[in-house]
């Protein structure tokens, strides 16, 4: 619940970290973390510059909030998330009230204690800086809008996957949307033993590309955001899908440029090609939303970046500097070092390229592996296991060296080491 966290304090200077995005044509961005309920205060930065302060276009931009939970302490559930947010807003209001009373006449009043988190929220409750709510499902968006109404916050929705379902309310409450172009796509393999996917999941995947056109029709202000899209090229391809599904090309381009700048509050400085504005320009050959798209030159703050021909990256294997991704496939007998009660288990791995599949098994049961990856550093995967009568989400990281396997299992209870050997 750390509202005062500022990501720009953690920005390392160096333009190279933005190279992928810049080569795709992005000149300006808002970057913010995803930890906690308050993700921190963000800034709008240009993706090039000799120092962090040289990159900043607008700071602060907004406070970011996710409806997340915290491991091991209140709020551990969504119930707590909302009451914790509500209590903090009330506390920020009260701090401001007491500061005013104290400033007017300090006599007889205990001096207000400074609290960094609450101080960071004061401009938020005064509508001086907006709040960006990460909300994708219809009910998350409605919860964000309700909270914004309760505390009279200047809200922006980020993600907004189902925002078209509440377009009327977004328009009425004058809330813009940073619409994610990370359109959902099926990533699970086929399996005869698995249940068929729920109808609502199938529908959501089919309907999402129609969202931008529907928002435009309802008069809701929106801009496109990349939001952890797997490959930056997907950003433009999906914008193209939105155009195929009813969004005008002009509206699509605007949603990446001036529309975005307006929501970020930097439209006086950038977002369109007009004299006097920051020279953030992209020269694109071919159709911006098509397969033949080729970004040739990018200007950030007037500095020219020539984009050389990029070799098409392989579909599943990311570049790894020449070292081979290890093959970790096989069955391993492991011991999980839970303090006081070591647990025996088995890891059964199958591997395709750098994707890891399989199961983790112990006397507590068998669980399938999710999001399994192998890199030169080792392997990671997630799983959900039953322990102590409840379900526990775990993240497992480890390495294989010869016949030995070792690593850690990360859970809300902490990190537990494990080790073992490969079965012949």
């Amino acid at each position: 619940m750390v509202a005062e966290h500022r990501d720009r304090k953690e920005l390392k200077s160096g333009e190279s970290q933005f190279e992928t995005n810049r080569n795709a044509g992005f000149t300006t961005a808002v970057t913010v973390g995803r930890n906690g309920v308050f993700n921190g205060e963000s800034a709008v930065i240009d993706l090039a510059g000799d120092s962090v302060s040289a990159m900043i276009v607008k700071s602060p931009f907004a406070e970011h909030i996710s409806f997340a939970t915290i491991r091991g302490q209140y709020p551990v559930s969504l119930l707590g998330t909302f009451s914790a947010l509500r209590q903090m807003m009330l506390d920020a209001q009260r701090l401001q009230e007491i500061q005013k009373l104290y400033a007017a006449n300090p006599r007889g009043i205990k001096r207000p204690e400074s609290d960094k988190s609450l101080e960071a929220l004061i401009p938020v409750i005064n509508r001086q800086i907006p709040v960006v709510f990460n909300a994708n499902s219809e009910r998350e968006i409605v919860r964000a809008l309700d909270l914004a109404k309760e505390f009279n916050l200047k809200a922006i929705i980020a993600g907004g996957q189902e925002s078209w379902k509440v377009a009327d309310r977004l328009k009425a409450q004058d809330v813009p949307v940073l619409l994610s172009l990370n359109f959902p796509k099926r990533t699970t393999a086929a399996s005869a033993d698995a249940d068929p996917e729920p109808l609502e999941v199938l529908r959501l995947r089919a309907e999402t590309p129609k969202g931008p056109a529907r928002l435009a029709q309802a008069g809701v202000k929106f801009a496109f955001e990349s939001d952890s899209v797997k490959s930056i090229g997907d950003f433009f391809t999906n914008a193209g899908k939105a155009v195929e599904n009813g969004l005008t090309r002009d509206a699509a381009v605007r949603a990446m440029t001036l529309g975005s700048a307006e929501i970020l509050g930097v439209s006086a400085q950038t977002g369109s090609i007009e004299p006097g504005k920051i020279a953030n320009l992209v020269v694109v050959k071919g159709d911006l939303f098509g397969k033949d798209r080729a970004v040739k030159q990018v200007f950030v703050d007037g500095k020219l970046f020539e984009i050389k021909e990029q070799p098409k990256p392989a579909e599943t294997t990311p570049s790894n500097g020449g070292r081979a991704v290890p093959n970790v496939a096989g069955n391993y007998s492991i011991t999980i070092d839970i303090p006081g009660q070591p647990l025996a288990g088995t890891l059964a791995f199958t591997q395709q390229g750098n994707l890891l599949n399989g199961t983790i098994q112990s006397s507590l049961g068998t669980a399938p592996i999710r999001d399994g990856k192998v890199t030169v550093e080792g392997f990671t995967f997630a799983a959900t296991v039953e322990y102590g009568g409840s379900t526990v989400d775990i993240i497992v990281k480890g390495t294989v060296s010869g016949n030995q396997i070792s690593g850690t299992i990360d859970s809300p209870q902490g990190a537990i080491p494990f080790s073992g050997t490969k079965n012949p």
Partner: protein
Amino acid sequence: MKRITAYFVSLLLVLGNLQFAAFGQANKELLIKNATVLTAIHGTLENTDILVRNGKIAKIGKNLSAGSGAEIIDATGKFVTPGIVDCHSHTMIDAINEGSLSVTSMTGTRDVLNPTDIAIYRALAGGVTSANILHGSANSIGGKNTVVKFKYGHPVEDFPIPDAPPGIKFAMGENPKGTNFSRPGVPPRYPRTRMGVIETMRDAFLRARDYKRAWDDYKAGKTKVPPRRDLELEPLVEVIEGKRLVHAHGYRSDEHLNLMLLADEFGFKIATLQHGLEAYKIAPEIAKRGTGVSIFTDSWGYKLEAYDAIPYNAYLLWKAGVVVSINSDSDERMRRLNLDAAKVEKYGGVPEEEALKMITLNPAKQLGIDKRTGSIEVGKDADLLIWSAHPFSVYSRVERTIIEGETFFDRAKDIQKRADLAKEREALEKLDVNKPPAAGGTQPRIPSEHRLEERDDAEYGDGGNQ
């Protein structure tokens, strides 16, 4: 000129009717004809009609007529009852327990309602029209409740009943104690005994009392600076002031008695003892205070504290003058509450209408919504069920579930719709976005015999059915 005017006028009529259809169902009249009506308050009426208008029961009688445009349902041979009210439910919420603290009165289920939960539709198919959506039983003092009507398909703000009195969940016994048992890596939490549970509650009320005093002093001008608004203590002040109903989960008669004595001390009464499978042992003490009990009919022995449960519990409590309701605390059991009500006729011989009241008027009374719903009376909300047979028969099915005059479940239409849904699925599965990836892809979840995340296991499995 005349021709043009005529055209214009008829166009207006068409538009007017369209608008009627769109806002339709609350304005539409509904006439249920020739049913056996179990009113839950004035006995059973044979061959009786019910006229619904503007969402309310307008008339009950024989040979009624409705205006043109009314929907007429021929209910010959069918049975009509009030909609079922489930006094203990964790349906339609995205989180059940805020398990980090022993007192979480600052939380509330209203913040996490999920109006798209398919369990709502299934509950409608079982005849439930209203429910008490509660926080779980992991904590001695849990969160605030929401009393809803299951208006599936409506936006979330339509679900909470606007004038329902607010409530809060308390829990005693094995569940709140069990949350705090030692587990590797989890910091130890208090309380771990029944005496700790009641002390946690006493402490919370003492703090609430101090909080109320601090605010009273500020309002009387005795202090300059307003006290900090504490969302944890405010609902507890409301409890002390009699403005918020306490629904207290518990099994053992001694702990429920203890809680009622604590409430006496602070000057309020407990609204309902939830589960209360030993409540028959302290029936006079409960009746004396006007506290209600909300039970399972014949669940027994699934926990040590459920060992002394008997199926005559409902009968004994009813005989002592206690308002008894039968609840589900389960997405699955809530679909067959009619059969649970039937059981109390067998165990003790509770009269039929009193048994029906236990799933309709009594829970409505316990939740403070009995002016609106819970029985079939002129002026009340038209929350009605049309059954294919007597609701206490195992062969009976809900054919129609109506809430405030609007149909939210229609068995015949549901069956017709299945073919459409199958076609829709077939078409959607052909789209590229819905096809599995050509190579690789993550492992899909393979169902095991024991399915996690189903609400049978909610609240550590109260009621059994493991």
